[in-house]
């Protein structure tokens, strides 16, 4: 049974309300006295903890914070990325719904450390009911003096607001998110300048994922070193994994980084094995954007070592035989799954979500969707498979933001590991049943 850090309290009745949260040790860091901790120490503890961004890229949080520019007289902002739109990911929703005060406390401590007096939670519009939960929790925090002017006599002021988006995956990309927060289309910005220098309203800004900011609470409470003692190597601490697909127990699991993938899929503590006793065929381990791996490569690395749920182990073998931790959206597929069709749902998704700024992504995602549709429709040729490969290669690395890569990698990995299945579709179209079903080209 691995240690629970973020979800330690999520089963407690009423934990979403401030009194119950406080009763179980919530807001302890604030109550100990914010002003007793120098702001720099907050950043140092986070550095020591080895915490890495939980939004997908896995960039060390302490390091990111240390890049924040601090010109005199210019406000700084902290923005929580609660856009959570990566297919297969639903952990932030779970965390905010169950324990909103953990995020709020994390944001107060982080804002203090960064010297930000205004913070926003940018939440996807579809999570409207969660925005309500957060607003309620924020109201409670203001009433207790945890937010607002001179928080618990520390001399530190913070205003925290919830901002709802309106349905756009791209707004999870941090610069697109800032554009959106400024009331514009979610077109990613060219970097540099990075948000740490010119972010929201051109002011220095830190953007962090919900889970990242929540993890700041235990880090400051127990110390960065205690957090770093959990996990494996540079993958410190715990990670929330959203498990879905053909498993017996889908849901959000907090794992200590380093748990073997095999244990994660088959043990009753986590996914509880494959549904209906089927065999495992493939896994998308970190949200739709990361390379898909066949069963043998997700359970063991190409060298035959057990694959672990850690940033390093999942990435072992690079793109040839490895994948990535990503956002922790763990999608499991059984032996009956059509990899081509699953890929089609991804390709259509990226086509739908491309912001349209960069031609390779805007055009390429549409091409990939149409070719996959053609193959599924029984009209594909062997050349179409090569064409798909070429298109993804021409998107990869040629766009302003990483949505291009996110659209290319699933295609590349599916062809790399399951080419024979694509060929089957092309060579034996009469074997394809029900493909004309519901997957249409038009997006609505």
């Amino acid at each position: 049974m691995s240690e629970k850090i973020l979800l330690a309290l999520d089963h407690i009745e009423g934990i979403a309300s401030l009194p119950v949260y406080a009763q179980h040790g919530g807001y302890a860091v604030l109550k100990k006295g914010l002003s007793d901790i120098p702001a720099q120490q907050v950043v140092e503890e986070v550095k020591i903890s080895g915490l890495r961004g939980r939004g997908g890229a896995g960039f060390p949080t302490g390091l990111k914070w240390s890049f924040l520019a601090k010109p005199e007289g210019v406000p700084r902002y902290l923005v929580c990325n609660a856009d959570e739109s990566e297919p297969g990911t639903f952990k932030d929703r779970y965390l905010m719904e169950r324990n909103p005060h953990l995020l709020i406390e994390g944001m107060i401590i982080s804002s203090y450390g960064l010297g930000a007096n205004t913070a926003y939670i940018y939440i996807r519009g579809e999570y409207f009911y969660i925005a309500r939960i957060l607003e309620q929790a924020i109201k409670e925090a203001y009433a207790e003096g945890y937010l607002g002017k001179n928080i618990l006599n520390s001399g530190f002021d913070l205003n925290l607001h919830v901002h709802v988006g309106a349905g756009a995956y791209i707004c999870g990309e941090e610069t697109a998110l800032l554009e959106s927060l400024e009331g514009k289309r979610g077109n990613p910005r060219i970097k540099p300048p990075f948000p740490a220098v010119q972010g929201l309203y051109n002011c220095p800004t830190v953007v962090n994922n919900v889970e990242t900011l929540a993890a700041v609470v235990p880090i400051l409470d127990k110390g960065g070193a205690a957090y770093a003692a959990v996990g494996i190597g540079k993958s410190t601490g715990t990670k929330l994994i959203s498990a879905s697909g053909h498993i017996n127990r889908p849901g959000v699991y907090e794992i200590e980084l380093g748990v073997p993938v095999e244990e994660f899929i088959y043990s009753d503590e986590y996914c509880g094995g494959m549904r209906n006793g089927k065999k495992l065929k493939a896994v998308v381990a970190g949200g739709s954007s990361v390379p898909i791996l066949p069963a043998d490569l997700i359970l063991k690395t190409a060298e035959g070592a057990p694959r672990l749920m850690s940033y390093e182990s999942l990435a072992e073998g690079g793109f040839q035989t490895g994948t990535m931790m990503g956002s922790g959206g763990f999608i499991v597929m059984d032996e009956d799954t059509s990899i081509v069709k699953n890929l089609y749902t991804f390709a259509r998704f990226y086509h739908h979500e491309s912001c349209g700024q960069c031609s390779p992504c805007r055009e390429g995602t549409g091409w990939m969707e149409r070719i996959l549709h053609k193959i599924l429709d029984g009209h594909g040729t062997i050349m179409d498979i090569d064409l798909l490969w070429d298109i993804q290669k021409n998107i990869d690395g040629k766009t302003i933001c990483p949505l291009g890569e996110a659209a290319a990698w699933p295609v590349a990995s599916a062809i790399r590991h399951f080419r024979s299945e694509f060929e089957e579709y092309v060579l034996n179209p009469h074997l394809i049943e029900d493909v004309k079903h519901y997957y249409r080209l038009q997006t609505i």
Partner: protein
Amino acid sequence: MTHYPENQSRSALIPVLHMAQSDFGGWLSVPVMDYVASVLNLLPIQVYEVASFYSMFNLKPVGNYMIEVCRTSSCWLCGAEDIMAHLENKLGIKVGQTTADGMFTLKAVECLGSCGTAPMMQVGADYYENLTIEKVDFIMEELKKENKYSRYC
């Protein structure tokens, strides 16, 4: 509006569009968008370009209930196609259409963060998860009985 610094009222655009859509029948007509522009002191084009970018804003009239079925990977793996087929048959319309009585609009959407409770659909602000055909039938009956406009904000 008080959430944003002075001179940054444009930031309020998306929240205000949500309110406008909710108050004006679930979609944004040009006059409504022009009105929003005047309230926020923006050019009409600044409103149109945002309204057309985000998938939650409807630029055409929709039914009282907007039924949005997720079609992305995890939901597809767990049978979203069957749910969609059932809804199409039941309502006698295709994806993207509205029933003749103006009650339901059926829409396919991308991952809504319910992958662990797939398949799922959203109606207004409400999530309906772990769907089965029977469950969909039950939900539809309830919605018909209530027959109210599904506001999400």
